């Protein structure tokens, strides 16, 4: 019996709308078709705007990696006008980026566990994530959309007291992440469900140019922090975390291991705050008719902004290429031939962000 299943646009496993049209043979998926664009908001057109407002607009592209989006946008615009941001601003941006990677990865791990019906660890992940959000509220004043990046620097300083708090936070977080890692890596049922499921071979990963933990789970050590360093990653060397097997398990383990990498980077950044100057903001210049592009390693992978200015306050063209945009073509070959029970799991280990995908 052949049936066609419309997996989405509304489906419990994804919060956001994406449609997979699955042709089934019993429990096995024979064919798969990807359809996107359910939340296309025309943001690239809207970006032809006052460049100062663009930083706030770019945060709204995605609710999870807001800091990465606005940092990437600001770096691109600063690049067109040849602006150098103060060192303190760069350190603060780096700390925020890594904090955000922490909370995004915890979210992704939690959702992965939820998609295989493990509600208990899902709750644990979200509880740990809550601590990171509290930290955000203390440092930036907002929980999710931080709004501290503007073209030329940041608007909130991290003082010595806050730096102390951040250090304490790192200790607590590391302990909790170690617990979480133990629980995930040693659970029999999670291994049973995730190992050998949705294998993306190294060749396929190179062909489709997938990014982020998806690529690193398939033995492709592609990390923008190492390949093309931005803000402070020239000083803080990052070694890409790589797993070889390429299945759902590998992708999740990459995320679990990157939690510790992020905590480590935050710890390295905090002492740099002490001897960075007090300046956190450089006055922006006029926008020349130039083009520039920047890339940032967002939690889901490489994030790309292309900016082109014209001789006015408004931007001429902004192109946003998000990480799910790069990973999107990877869904189809992996889902073909898998079980229906694994479709949600495979897609959620890509950590899809449809808001990013459609823009």
């Amino acid at each position, binding site marked *: 019996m052949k049936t066609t299943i419309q997996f989405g646009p509304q489906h419990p496993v994804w919060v956001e709308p994406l449609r997979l049209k699955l042709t089934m043979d019993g429990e096995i998926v024979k064919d798969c078709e990807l359809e996107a*664009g359910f939340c296309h908001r025309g943001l690239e057109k809207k970006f032809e705007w006052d460049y100062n407002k663009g930083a706030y607009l770019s945060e709204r592209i995605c609710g999870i990696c807001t800091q990465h989006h606005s940092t990437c946008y600001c770096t691109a615009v600063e690049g067109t006008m040849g602006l150098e941001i103060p060192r303190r601003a760069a350190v603060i941006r780096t700390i925020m980026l890594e904090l955000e990677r922490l909370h995004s990865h915890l979210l992704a791990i939690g959702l992965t566990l939820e998609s295989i019906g493990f509600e208990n660890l899902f709750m644990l992940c979200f509880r740990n994530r809550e601590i990171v959000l509290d930290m955000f509220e203390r440092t930036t004043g907002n929980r999710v959309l931080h709004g501290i990046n503007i073209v030329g620097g940041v608007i909130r300083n991290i003082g010595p007291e806050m730096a102390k708090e951040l250090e304490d936070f790192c200790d607590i977080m590391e302990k909790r992440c170690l617990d979480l890692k133990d629980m995930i890596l040693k659970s029999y049922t999670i291994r049973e469900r995730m190992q050998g499921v949705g294998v993306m071979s190294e060749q396929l990963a190179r062909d489709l*140019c997938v990014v982020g933990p998806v690529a690193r789970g398939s033995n492709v050590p592609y990390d923008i922090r190492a*390949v093309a360093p931005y803000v402070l990653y020239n000083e803080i060397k990052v070694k890409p975390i790589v797993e070889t097997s390429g299945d759902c398990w590998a992708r999740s383990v990459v995320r679990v291991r990157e939690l510790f990498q992020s905590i480590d980077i935050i710890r390295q950044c905090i002492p740099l705050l002490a001897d960075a100057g007090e300046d956190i903001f450089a006055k922006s210049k006029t926008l020349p008719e130039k083009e520039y*592009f920047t890339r940032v390693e967002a939690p889901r992978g490489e994030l790309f902004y292309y900016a082109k200015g014209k001789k006015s306050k408004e931007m001429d063209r902004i192109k946003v290429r998000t990480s799910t945009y*790069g990973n999107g*073509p990877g869904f189809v070959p992996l889902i073909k031939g898998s079980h229906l029970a694994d479709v949600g799991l495979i897609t959620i280990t890509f950590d899809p962000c449809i808001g990013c995908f*459609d823009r």
Partner: protein
Amino acid sequence: MDVKTVTQQEMQDVARRLRAAGTRLITIVGYDSGDTIQVSYFFQPFPEGKAETYRVVVPKHGGNEEVESITPIFPAAYIAENELAEMFGVHVKGVPGRFFLHESINAPLRRKAP
């Protein structure tokens, strides 16, 4: 940011050469400058190297512009080429040209010729 401007035929050769060298495609960016449509291809050499940019300039003539597809060479270009086609109303050979937008919306980023 240094850009090498090439013709469409040269672009195919460039893409083949880069593919053989193991280069990654970052994305394809379209830009409407009024009388031309500029298509920029961004590549990242892997495992290390500086990003390269190639640009194809397509003169506008009333919505019948044709761009050669590099999807057969780089499978990763599929979504980007579809988006290029639907956003700028150009015809990219070999891709359906609809991915994000509904059929009723036509080339929102295309500008009027000055």
